C-alpha cells in the first residue's frame, strides 16, 4: 500500500514536485535569513571585540576597576612574559597587546611653531611585527581614506576629519603630548602615514593610531601594556570556551591580593555587553521567529490546499471501503515525506548560500555613509548548529500541520456529506 501511495506521489507533480519546490524555497529562505540575522549581530559583536574588548581581555585588577579612564599608571608590567605564558597555556587564542591613551596632537607650521592643536584619543596596536593580524582585525586597511598603514617606527594614522580640519597631509609631522605611565609628561613626534575613518563621531573628531612599541617608548611603558586581548584563532567568539579560559586563568591568581595582579574578563563581562548579547540574541530570535511564522503560514497553506485538493480522491477511497483513519494516516505520511524532502533540499541550498555569505558577505559600503572601522561594510552570514535544523520547523512541521488540519475534515464530516461535497 505504501508503495502504491508512493507511486501516486511521484507521478502527481501537484502532490510532489510543486510542494517540494514551495517547501524548499521557504526552507531555503528561512535557513539563509536566520544565518544572516545571526551573522549581522555577530558582526556587531565582533567589531566590539576586535576594537575594544577582545574575546577575552587581561588587565590589572586596578585598571579593570577604572578601565573607562584608560589608567596606564595601572598597566600590566612584564607583558611579554605574560603573553609567552598565555600562548603556552591557551594556544587556541591569539594574544596581543593594546594600550589606550589620551593626549593632544600638535601640528607645527614650516617654522616648527604650533599651527593647530586638537584633543585626540589614542590607541596603540601591533602594526609592525611581520604577519601581524591586528590592522585587518580592526578593519584598518579598508578604513584608510588617504595614505597607507604605518610601515616603520614613528609613523601614525590619524582620523581623516581631524586631518582635513587642520589641513594635515600625508607625510606631515605631528607631535603627541600625553602622560607617561608614571605620571610624567610625554611627547613624541610622528609622521602621518595615512588617515582613517572610524565611523564613530568622537573618534573621527580626533584620534591617533600608533604602533605598540612606539607607544611603549613614548609613554615610558617598557614591556608594559594597558591591556592584553585574546582572540579565538577561528575568529568566532565562543562564550562557553571563553568562560573556561577565564576561569582557568583567574584561578592562578585567586590567592594573589595584589591590585596589580592580572584579571581576565570575557567579552560578555565588559561594557554591558552581556546585556547587549542577550538583547541581540533576543532580537535575532524574534526576527527569526517572525520569519519562520510567515514561512510556516505559507507552507501551512500549501499543505492545506494539497489536502483539500484531494477530497475527491478521499471520497472514492472511502466509498471503496478504506477507513478514515487509514486515509488520514496516509495523508500525514505523505506530508512527512514531502516535508522532509523539501526541508532537506531547502536546508542544503540555504546552507550553501549562507556559506557563501559567510565567506564573502554582501558589501553595503556604498549604502552606508561614514562607514569605517567601527561600522562593518560587509555583512556576513553566520552558520551555526541551528542553521542545520531551523528550516525543518516551517518545512516539516507546517506541512504536516497543514495536512493534518485539512485531514480533520475527513473526520469532522459524515461520510455521505463528504461524499456529496465531492460530487462523487
Amino acid at each position: 500500500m505504501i508503495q502504491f501511495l508512493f507511486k501516486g506521489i511521484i507521478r502527481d507533480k501537484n502532490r510532489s514536485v510543486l510542494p517540494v519546490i514551495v517547501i524548499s524555497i521557504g526552507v531555503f529562505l528561512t535557513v539563509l535569513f536566520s544565518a544572516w540575522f545571526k551573522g549581522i549581530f555577530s558582526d556587531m559583536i565582533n567589531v566590539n571585540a576586535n576594537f575594544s574588548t577582545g574575546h577575552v581581555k587581561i588587565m590589572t585588577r586596578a585598571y579593570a576597576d577604572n578601565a573607562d579612564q584608560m589608567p596606564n599608571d595601572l598597566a600590566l608590567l612584564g607583558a611579554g612574559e605574560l603573553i609567552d605564558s598565555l600562548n603556552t597555556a591557551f594556544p587556541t587564542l591569539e594574544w596581543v597587546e593594546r594600550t589606550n591613551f589620551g593626549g593632544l596632537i600638535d601640528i607645527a607650521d614650516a617654522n616648527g611653531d604650533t599651527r593647530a592643536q586638537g584633543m585626540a584619543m589614542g590607541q596603540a596596536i601591533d602594526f609592525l611585527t611581520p604577519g601581524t593580524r591586528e590592522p585587518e582585525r580592526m578593519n584598518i586597511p579598508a578604513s584608510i581614506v588617504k595614505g597607507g598603514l604605518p610601515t616603520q617606527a614613528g609613523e601614525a594614522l590619524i582620523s581623516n576629519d581631524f586631518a582635513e580640519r587642520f589641513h594635515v597631509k600625508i607625510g606631515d609631522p605631528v607631535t603627541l603630548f600625553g602622560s607617561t605611565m608614571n605620571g610624567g609628561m610625554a611627547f613624541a613626534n610622528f609622521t602621518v602615514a595615512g588617515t582613517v575613518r572610524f565611523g564613530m563621531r568622537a573618534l573621527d573628531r580626533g584620534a591617533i593610531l600608533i604602533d605598540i612599541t612606539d607607544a611603549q617608548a613614548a609613554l615610558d611603558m617598557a614591556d608594559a601594556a594597558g591591556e592584553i586581548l585574546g582572540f579565538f584563532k577561528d575568529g568566532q567568539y565562543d562564550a562557553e570556551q571563553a568562560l573556561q579560559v577565564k576561569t582557568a586563568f583567574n584561578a592562578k591568581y585567586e590567592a594573589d591580593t595584589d591590585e596589580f595582579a592580572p584579571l581576565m574578563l570575557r567579552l560578555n563581562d565588559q561594557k554591558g555587553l552581556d546585556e547587549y548579547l542577550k538583547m541581540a540574541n533576543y532580537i535575532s530570535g524574534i526576527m527569526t521567529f517572525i520569519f519562520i511564522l510567515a514561512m510556516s503560514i505559507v507552507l501551512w497553506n500549501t499543505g492545506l490546499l494539497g489536502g483539500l485538493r484531494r477530497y475527491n480522491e478521499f471520497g472514492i477511497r472511502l466509498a471503496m471501503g478504506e477507513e478514515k483513519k487509514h486515509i488520514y494516516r496516509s495523508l500525514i505520511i505523505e506530508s512527512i515525506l514531502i516535508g522532509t524532502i523539501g526541508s532537506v533540499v531547502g536546508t542544503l541550498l540555504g546552507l550553501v548560500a549562507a556559506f557563501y555569505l559567510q565567506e564573502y558577505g554582501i558589501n553595503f559600503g556604498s549604502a552606508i555613509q561614514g562607514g569605517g572601522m567601527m561600522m562593518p561594510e560587509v555583512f556576513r552570514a553566520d552558520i551555526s548548529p541551528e542553521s542545520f535544523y531551523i528550516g525543518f520547523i516551517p518545512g516539516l512541521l507546517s506541512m504536516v500541520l497543514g495536512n493534518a488540519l485539512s485531514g480533520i475534515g475527513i473526520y469532522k464530516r459524515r461520510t455521505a456529506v463528504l461524499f456529496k461535497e465531492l460530487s462523487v
Partner: protein
Amino acid sequence: MESIIQIDQLTKRFPVGAGEFTALKDIRLEFQKGEFTGFVGPSGSGKTTLLNIIGSLDTPTEGEVTVLGQSIAHLTHKQSAKLRNQHLGFIFQTYNLFPVYTVYENVEFALLLQHMPAAERHKAVLDALEWVGLTDKIKSRPDQLSGGEGQRVAIARAMVKRPAIMLADEPTANLDSKNSHHILQTMVRLNQELKTTFLFATHDEKVMGYLRRIISLEDGRVVKDEALAPQGQAGA
C-alpha cells in the same frame, strides 16, 4: 431466493437552514440475491440518497436498513468501511478513477485494501480486466481512455473483489448509446454469472430496458414497484 437487503420504514431527513428536508419517507423494500433492479424518478426524488444508505455511506434518520444481515444505523465507521470493502461495489456517473494510476493499478487498489497477496491480486486484476475486455489497456492512464473504456475500468475496479452488491449511480449518464449498451451487457453478464446483485439509480431509458425490477420514487416515496421482463437484454 435469499433476501440480502431489507428496508423497513426508512425515513431520511437533511437539515436545511433552520428546518429540514425529507429526502426519503417511510420506504419499505426488500431485495433478493441476484436482482437487477433500478430506482427511477426525477432529480430530487431520493434515488441517490437511498443508494447511499444501502451502501452505508449514510445512515437512516428513522427506520431500519439491513444489508447482508448488518443494520446500517448501528454500524461503527470501521464496520461500515469493512462492509463496503468486502461486500459492496460502487460505480459512479463520472467513473472517478485515480488519474495518476494506470488501469491495472486502479483496479488493483480495491484488492490492496483487502491485503490480498500479490500473486493472487495480480491474477484477480487480470481476470477483472478480461471480463470488461481491457487487457490491452492495463498500462494506460485514465486520460488515455475513452468514456466507455473509463466506465469499464470502473466496473472492473468494483467487481474485482467479487462484491455481493453493486451500487451504480447513473452509470451511463456520460456515455453514448453504443457504450451504454456495452456497459450494461457487461453488468448483466456479471449479474448472471457471478450472481452479483445490481442496484441502479437512473433515469436513463437504456438502463431501464435491462432492469428486471423498477422501483419508482417521487418526493422520497416509493410510488411503484414492478417486476418486469427486461427488454434491453433481449434486444441487445
